[in-house]
Structures are given as structure tokens and as C-alpha cells.
């Protein structure tokens, strides 16, 4: 990636004492454990995590479907949930892209929107650039693949941070799969409105991941993983995706039994 792609350049703050966690609607109802894992992992880094109970969804589904007013009402309700001037860490690149890069347009003219958007950090971006984290791998040697969501890659420019976190895990070998940068075919309502095309895309993506011959693949986006894992399960393949928050927690956790807990 070019260093001149200014959209992805930003100033990062010092390590804060407190952060907000934005759990996303998908993690909330389908994959809550990854949210808990993210909280636990951040706390282990000495950061207090606040999870506002009033959060729901970033508004992306309506926004992407062209229903601006409906999306705006939901987006404004989210902004109101995060009053403190501390970072908001999001465990999804696509919701992060929505709140960081689309809120300025959607909520143009609303007070404090620029400052709000400046506080949005995708999870891996926050770990690498704000916490400047050093990982201590405690897990067994294994081969994995990494799926970066398109929003993380192209909107947020944070595909590099996921990769750099994995590279810190010394017992983990990251295998590059074919067409790694290609979309998995999810695209929110696209997967339902144009199911045939989306289906063809996820079929190819899951095949490419299977051909990488890895024990699991990691991603920081549940939208993509719901799509790809669903396809893998349908194909009766045992390969699954795991959220990077859960994976990092697992790899770096001291064995509780050894510590006598």
C-alpha cells in the first residue's frame, strides 16, 4: 500500500486508561463470546473497558440499502451512547468503516460528529497503533489463514494490523490463501438481494480457504465469518473462522491450571 493514500493516515493517541467497546449487532445476538473476549483481552492490557448498554447497531444495513433517514436515526442514537472523550474500539472493520468514514456524510451538520468519528478505532488497529502491543504466544504451533474484510482493507486500511498481530505470534504460521484480497460475497443485504452472485463468491472464498490447508482462519469481522462459516458448514467442511479477539486471548492466556487458579 502506498504511504500517500492519505485516507488511511491518522494521528494515534497515547494509551488511554479507559475505552468504550462497540460490540456490533452481529456479535450481540450471534457471537457474544467474541465481545467478552475482546473486553477481557483489553483489560489484560491494563485498559478499563466500558460497554454502554444503550448501543444497538451502527445503521449500516439501512444505509447501504439507501434508507438514509432510517439509518440516520439509528446512527444518532449510537453517538449519544458514547459521551466521554475516550477511544471507541469496534470489533468489526465494516461497522468501524461505517462509523468512521460514513457518519461524517450521514450525520453532516450534527454537533460533535467529527470528534466522534476521530475516536473510532478498529480492534486490531487499536492494539497495534494505540497500545503498541507486544504479544507473548503461549499456544501450540499451528497454521492459520487470515481473512480481512473489504471495509477493514479498503475503508479503514487496517488489513496490515491484523497481519502484524498474527506475525507476533511466534508459533503461528500465517498461510496466504489464493485471492486473499477478494471479497467473500457478504455485503449485507447484497447477500439476500443478489443471492446467486453472493453465493458464487462465498463458494470461491471458502474453497480458497480450504485449499490453504490450515486448521482455522482468523478474521476481525463477523459479517464475513457468518457468511464463510455458513458456507463451510453447508459444505460439511470442518474449517471455521475465529474472531481475532478470541484468538489472541486464547494464544496469550497463561494456562490457568498451571497458575493454580
Amino acid at each position: 500500500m502506498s504511504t500517500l493514500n492519505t485516507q488511511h493516515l491518522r494521528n494515534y493517541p497515547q494509551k488511554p486508561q479507559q475505552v468504550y467497546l462497540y460490540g456490533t449487532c452481529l456479535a450481540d445476538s450471534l457471537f457474544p463470546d467474541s465481545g467478552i473476549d475482546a473486553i477481557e483481552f483489553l483489560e489484560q492490557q491494563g485498559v478499563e473497558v466500558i460497554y454502554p448498554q444503550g448501543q444497538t447497531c451502527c445503521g449500516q444495513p439501512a444505509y447501504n440499502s439507501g434508507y438514509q433517514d432510517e439509518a440516520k436515526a439509528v446512527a444518532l442514537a449510537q453517538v449519544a451512547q458514547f459521551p466521554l472523550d475516550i477511544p471507541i474500539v469496534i470489533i468489526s472493520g465494516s461497522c468501524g468503516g461505517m462509523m468512521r468514514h460514513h457518519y461524517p456524510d450521514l450525520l453532516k451538520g450534527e454537533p460533535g460528529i467529527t470528534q466522534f468519528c476521530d475516536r473510532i478505532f478498529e480492534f486490531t488497529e487499536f492494539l497495534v497503533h494505540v497500545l503498541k502491543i507486544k504479544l507473548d504466544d503461549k499456544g501450540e504451533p499451528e497454521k492459520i489463514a487470515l481473512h480481512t474484510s473489504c471495509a477493514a482493507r479498503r475503508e479503514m486500511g487496517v488489513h496490515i494490523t491484523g497481519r502484524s498481530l498474527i506475525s507476533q505470534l511466534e508459533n503461528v504460521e500465517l498461510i496466504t490463501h489464493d485471492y486473499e484480497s477478494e471479497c467473500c460475497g457478504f455485503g449485507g443485504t447484497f447477500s439476500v438481494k443478489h443471492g446467486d452472485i453472493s453465493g458464487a463468491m462465498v463458494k470461491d472464498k471458502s474453497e480458497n480457504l480450504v485449499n490453504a490447508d490450515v486448521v482455522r482462519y482468523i478474521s476481525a469481522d463477523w459479517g464475513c465469518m457468518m457468511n464463510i462459516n455458513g458456507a463451510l458448514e453447508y459444505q460439511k467442511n470442518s474449517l471455521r473462522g475465529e474472531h481475532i479477539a478470541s484468538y489472541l486471548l486464547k494464544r496469550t492466556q497463561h494456562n490457568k491450571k498451571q497458575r493454580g487458579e
Partner: protein
Amino acid sequence: MAAQQLDPNESKYAASARNFRDNVKRDLGNQELRENFRGAMDYLVDKRKNAFPDGDELETLREQCKLIKQRCLLKLPHLLEQLEENLQANGIHVHWAETITDANDIIAQLIAAKNGKSVVKGKSMVSEETALNDYLEARDIECLESDMGEYIVQLAHQHPSHIIMPAIHQNKKQVADLFADNIDGFAHTTDVDALIGEGRRVLREKFCQADVGITGVNFAVAETGTLCLVENEGNGRMCTTVPDLHIAITGIEKVVEFLDDVPPLLSLLTRSATGQIISTYFNMISHPRQSGEKDGPEEVHLVLLDNGRSQAFADEELRQTLQCIRCGACMNHCPVYTRIGGHAYGTVYPGPIGKIVSPHMLGLEATNNLPTASSMCGACGEVCPVKIPIPKLLQRLRVESVKAKHNGEPVMKGEGSGRKSIEAAIWQVWSIMHKYAFIYKTSMWFATRLRKLMPNKIGVWTSVRTAPKLAPQTLHEKVQARQNQQQYKQLQGGK
């Protein structure tokens, strides 16, 4: 405007765009077609990548070219007048066409005035837009495509499936069979060089017989009154030098202000399109044959077509659509195009650029399926040489498509035509549910408790995937429980 809608040529594309969903089903099921596209797109993606070894240089050029095109668009009305003035001073005639019928009429009249019977064409997507071949053939004028890809497509009675590589949907075996069926004395071969040699042999004769040459234009320079034409096969040069009459046709957005604007645009165009540092031919046409010159046409004409472009121009955001220099990189990198191919779109321009430009040409009513047929992955915007924010424009077209009726001046032809009351109602309910956290949390509480009742078949989703399964407890609940536990521990610790 009503007359334009009834135009048989326009409705041809409008009708095929309306059939998008059926076209997609048809072409997704064609394994050979899919392999042809995947292989060709991989090749082009690779070529482009190798043509830009320095990412910083690429970004600098993209920014520069975006600014050039934006400047030229800001001054568009003025530049078009300047272009007309300078072309006329050079002896090139200028014609204005608001609709595709206007353009075809103008061209037919120019040919009739010369009593022309046969036309050779260089590659021109704008002439595809006007369906010029059909129009002229209906008037007994033979119209031969001279670009190798276009020639193949014409023999097969098809349309281009790609704006740079019109016959990319066919492999060499299919082309060999096509030649065998259509060219007398063709010795069957699947050797690519031999196939191209055979095509060139046929075309060479036609160049010498043709009365008229018709080409497109890549850049029309206002400052000097020059028409620039980028090509690889030399057929463009033949079309513009051999026949006595040369007619160029292009869209109004192709005008650039200065001659100096051309080199950076050209450099990005050829590298983005085919990975070439420069095309094999670059023609600059500044006047008809002058006294003492041994070749060149006696008359040169330029037809400038609007066909919905001024609708895009009128809106500051949608105007960015007109920055396009037609390199095709967006389609080469598009995961949707790579799978469904170019014909499924049903429009003249396929792929991401087709999705944002066609609604202005055919109206949103006919093209409603196009803006939604994107996963918004952003690959197109990432490679666009002039930085058109294609995903953003797709999103905007989705907004225009489902817009509720209002009394103001419409932004686009067919706006609001994609709005379905049931879908609108669903989003309204969705919005209220997600605006008020207590409604959301209550709904999610019930949903997770009733998860066993969730269907395991949900429409098209479960035709290739299993249904997502709701968790027993939401993250909201889990966080609350965790906090309660921690507080309890703290209290106990405090005792």
C-alpha cells in the same frame, strides 16, 4: 423526451438491463464463460500490478489525474465551446447530439451526403451506446468493426462484454469455430497469432474499399482542437487515414483543457487498462487532409453525445461519474464482474462503471438492479485511475432508487422507481427498533430465548450456507452478568 423513450435502440438496452437477474442466472451457470472471465481478469489484474511497481508514483498520478478531470468538468460548458471553436478553426466539423437517435441521424446524414455505402469502424463504445451498427445496417450501409475483438463480437452477433477487451468472454477455441463458420477458406487453427493474422487479412481488404471511417475519441483537447485516439492494432489509424470521410463520435465528458493534460492521463489509462506503458498507436487528429498531403480524409467530423451525461453533470456528487477515462480496471478487479461476466449487465457499459453510468443513460427504472448488485467491497474505487468513488456513487444511486416521492425537481430519470412499500416499512420498523435500545434489547432477549424456533432455511441464503444460529444470551446480557459478578467479588473482597 417521450420520443427518446420510445426509441427502439434505447429500449433494447433498457430491456436487457431489466433482465439482469435472469441474465445473471444464465451466465453464472455457464462454466466455460466463467473460466474465460476469471482467467482473463486475473491476467489483466497482474498486468496492471506490474505496470505500477511504485505505489507512491501511482497515488501521485491518480491524484493528479483526478484533479485534471475535475478541473475539466468544472469548466465543461466553456471547454466544449472552446473545443468546437478550435476544431472548426482546424477544419473539423462539430455536431451536437442530445440523444442517441440524434447522433445516429447526424452520422447517417453525413454518410448519405457522401453517398457512402460501406463503413469501417475503429473501436468506439459510444457508437455501441447509440447502437450505430444496427441503425446503419437498417439503412443498407455495411458497417464493419475493425478492432479484432469488436470484429469477433460482430461476427458472433453479440455485444462487447468488456469496454477494452470486447471479446474477452470467448476463448481461442470459440474464436476458431466462429472464424470457421464465417470466413471462407479459413484453415482451422487455435493458434492465437494465426487467428489474429486471419482476421487482419480479411480486414485489410475492407479498409481499402470503405467510404467512411468511424472511430471514438479518448481525449478531445480544447486548447488545440485535437482528437486523441488510443489503440493497439493500427486499425484506428487506418480508419482515420484511408477513407475520405472520418467521423469521430464521443461523449461530452471526454474534453480536456490543455494538451499538457494528456500525457498523465494517457500514462494512467494504458497502464490501468492493459498494463502497457504506452499503447502501440496514439493518434492525434488535428485537421483533414491538407493540400500536398498524400493521405488522410477529405472531411473530418466530430459528434458530441450527451445521452444523459448532463443529468450526471448537474449534481456535484454524481458528476464524478464523468471523470471516467474508460480504462476498464474497475471491471477487471470486480468480484461480481469476474463471476457474471459483461453480458449479464444488459447494458453497453458493464462492471462497476456501468452500474454508475448506465442509470443516467437508461434511467433508474430500467437499471434498478445494478446499484444493488455490489457487495460494496471497494476494489473498483481502489484501482480507479481518476479516483471515482464508485462505491459511494453506488450508495447514492441506491438512495435515489428508493427515494420517496417529493415535489422538488427530480435528480434523475426514474428516481424512486425502486421503492417498494413493504421494504420501506421494514426499514422504518428496523429503524425504530434500533433507535430505542430498550425495544432492541427486549426483542433480542426474546429472539435468543426463542432461538430454537428460528427457521434453518432462510431463502437464498441457505442455498449455499447454513443459517446463522442465535446465541443463548446476548452480549449485552453477558457484559451485565460479568459486571455483576465483578461487583459481587469486590464486595466480598471488601468484607
